[in-house]
């Protein structure tokens, strides 16, 4: 008897624990804004717990110039942030200004009318390039809902000491690069600390090694117009180009996680790490003695373009909550965030590339990354341009590329998986 009752209760209990989590509810926490005469407190929600001290310094600049305004950066855990923000934005006690994810991940907030359109509110947005504004745009109405704050660029990051030890310099041609990989491998050094087990890194690595092969923005334009797709030859070739480097990945790379790959690189067991520019700060923290360099993959034989393309995308933006009781003050804050003072403070304090046009990073490698990206930009196709509906190309690519590098699918099958998923909702632009 006890077993039967316990069984039934346990079934109900264990299942509904999961159901609770999906229930939308009123946001928690105290009021973000206190209107007391001219005193205004603005809550800025974000997912960067490690950046609190830097944001305090940055917002101090705004507070000094705007007496009576207090800006508080309220961080949440990155993997819980999206859920918390979705409920928080619907309530006046939520944020006044919020860090927003870019591209497809922004769309649920736009659909819920949780954000204030900024097209007519922030004049400085007119100076931002269209490719940057795409990261903060609602797909359904084309309006801009955030001021982009950071660009992320994708590179091969290398250990300068290992390169020096083996007489290697940043490669200028594909053949140079493969030769360098071979030299390192012969010397017992893992050339590339590639992440395989954490599948979200696979589309990033594919862009780093395959962008020139499929052609970057030129090919993207054809894809958006419906004239090309994931299953066409340039894209298929880009998959095999990337996969051809797997002989230089770590032994038993199938089980190498993101954390493993980072540790392989920072411990000096691997000479290079293909990933985002945000890794610079992470690597410097893990091993302050590391001397780092970056390069991008030169076009391989048969590539669609002969330039060394540098993929990049908008990391996120700052938007204004439609439920904020201090919307005007919040709008003033994001107007400042679109300007030079915020952009410079952001790049100096956080060691990231500011999305504000004209801001030059003081950090040498960041400046190199930005300059290279601006000279030969390439999109992060699956994440940025085919992620506005379900299933997103980014999710599909993560699955398909995992199958592909593990030998469970051919390039055609992997590309077919992405195309079949996207075809359910994507409509070519006229």
């Amino acid at each position, binding site marked *: 008897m006890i*077993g*039967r009752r*316990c*069984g*039934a209760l*346990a*079934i*109900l209990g*264990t*299942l*509904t624990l*999961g*159901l*609770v*989590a*999906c*229930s*939308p509810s009123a946001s928690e926490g105290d009021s973000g804004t206190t209107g007391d005469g001219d005193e205004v407190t603005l809550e800025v929600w974000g997912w960067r717990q490690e950046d609190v001290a830097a944001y305090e310094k940055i917002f101090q600049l705004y507070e000094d110039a705007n007496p009576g305004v207090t800006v508080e950066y309220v961080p949440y855990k990155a993997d819980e942030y*999206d*859920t918390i923000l*979705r409920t928080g*934005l*619907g309530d006046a006690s939520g944020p006044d200004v919020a860090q927003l994810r870019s591209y*497809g991940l922004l*769309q*649920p*907030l*736009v*659909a*819920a*009318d*949780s954000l204030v359109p900024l097209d007519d509110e922030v004049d400085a947005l007119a100076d931002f390039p269209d490719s940057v504004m795409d990261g903060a745009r609602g797909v359904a109405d084309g309006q801009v809902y955030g001021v982009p704050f950071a660009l992320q660029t994708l590179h091969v990051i290398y250990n300068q000491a290992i390169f020096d030890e083996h007489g290697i310099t940043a490669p200028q041609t594909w053949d140079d690069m493969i030769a360098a990989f071979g030299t390192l491998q012969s010397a017992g050094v893992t050339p590339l600390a590639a992440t*395989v*087990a*954490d*599948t979200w890194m696979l589309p990033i690595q594919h862009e780093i090694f395959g962008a020139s092969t499929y052609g970057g923005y030129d090919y993207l334009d054809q894809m958006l117009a419906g004239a090309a797709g994931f299953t066409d030859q340039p894209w298929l070739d880009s998959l095999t180009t990337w996969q051809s480097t797997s002989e230089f990945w770590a*032994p*038993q*790379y*199938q*089980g*190498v*996680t993101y954390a*493993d790959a980072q*540790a*392989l690189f920072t411990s000096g*067991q691997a000479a290079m790490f293909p990933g985002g520019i945000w890794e610079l700060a992470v690597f410097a923290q893990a091993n302050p003695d590391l001397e780092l360099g970056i390069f991008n993959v030169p076009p391989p034989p048969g590539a669609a373009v002969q330039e060394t393309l540098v993929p990049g995308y908008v990391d996120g933006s700052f938007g204004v909550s439609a439920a904020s009781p201090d919307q005007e003050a919040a709008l003033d804050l994001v107007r400042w965030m679109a300007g030079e003072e915020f952009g410079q403070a952001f790049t100096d304090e956080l060691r990231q590339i500011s999305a504000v046009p004209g801001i030059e990073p003081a950090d040498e490698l960041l400046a190199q990354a930005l300059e290279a990206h601006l000279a030969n930009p390439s999109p992060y196709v699956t994440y940025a341009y085919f992620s506005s*509906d*379900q*299933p997103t190309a980014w*999710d*599909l690519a*993560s*699955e398909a590329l*995992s199958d592909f590098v*593990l030998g*469970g699918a051919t390039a055609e099958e992997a590309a077919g998986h992405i195309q*079949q*998923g996207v075809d*359910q909702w994507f409509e070519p632009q006229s």
Partner: protein
Amino acid sequence: MTSGPRRPARASRYRAGRTGLGWIAGFTLPALTLYGLLIVVPLVTAFYYGFFHWEGTQRAGFAGLGNYQEVLTRYPLGDEIPVALWHNVLFFVGTMAIQNTVGLGLAVLLYRNPRFKRFFQTVFSLPYLISPLIVGYLWSLLLSPSFGPVNYVLQSVGLDSWARPWLGDPGTALPVLILVNAWQWIGGPMLIFLAALGGIPRELEEAAALDGASSARAFWSVRFPLLRPAVGVITVLTFIGCFNIFDLVYALGGSDGGPGGAMDVLGLLYYRTAFEGGTNAIGESSALAMMIFVLIFGVAIVLERFLRRREVTS
């Protein structure tokens, strides 16, 4: 049988009934309130939400069975549901075969050799106290192909060919999940079987021995049939646990279910639909949750009734 003894009995039952109602209400109301608020309300709410289309957190139009249809037919979600369900089934079968069988073996060993019984009971139950997330992350470190001690030890003793990316190979990922899960929970069936073994009257075993039954024959013909109630409870609890698994597999293989989705299970599928889904994530995930609920609840009840019928009482 006289009427004398009945009167006080009737009176006491009457008194117990009157006072009992108040006491019962007083004791159960807090628990019922919590149960209602934390379990029944969200369950009913999810059922309700599943019939609407959602724009982020805003409820839009009535969708009828649209969300159910979407979940079952959209590529690749519709294809992933049977695959994930099959992985849950394999996980259940593997857990029954390894965790519960070895648990029974350990219980018999400790029952026969009471020396150090408490010590081993504690040792085998200790992993219980650790969160499955921590267990998962610990084992993913132990099994790491780059830094893990498991492969290092294998290579050190000349078994290089045995060293492999345990969690990165689609062929080994699910068996490893079953073994790690068994490592954590093996103390559960062991304790239940140990208690059940202690409840079997010694006379039955002595009678079997006097009749000349061997030790193995006495176990299979006398003890094991009397353990069936425990087997039933453990089977149902294992079924529920295996079909609700999330935390351990998330820690071992991430939300995608490891290499090529080799460890993808219904819990991860729900997580991806709810927390990595699009604008209508609430509607679709509610529909998926209700389907999983009906499946587990229905099968668990059928399973339990089937096992109850086969019980033997001493």
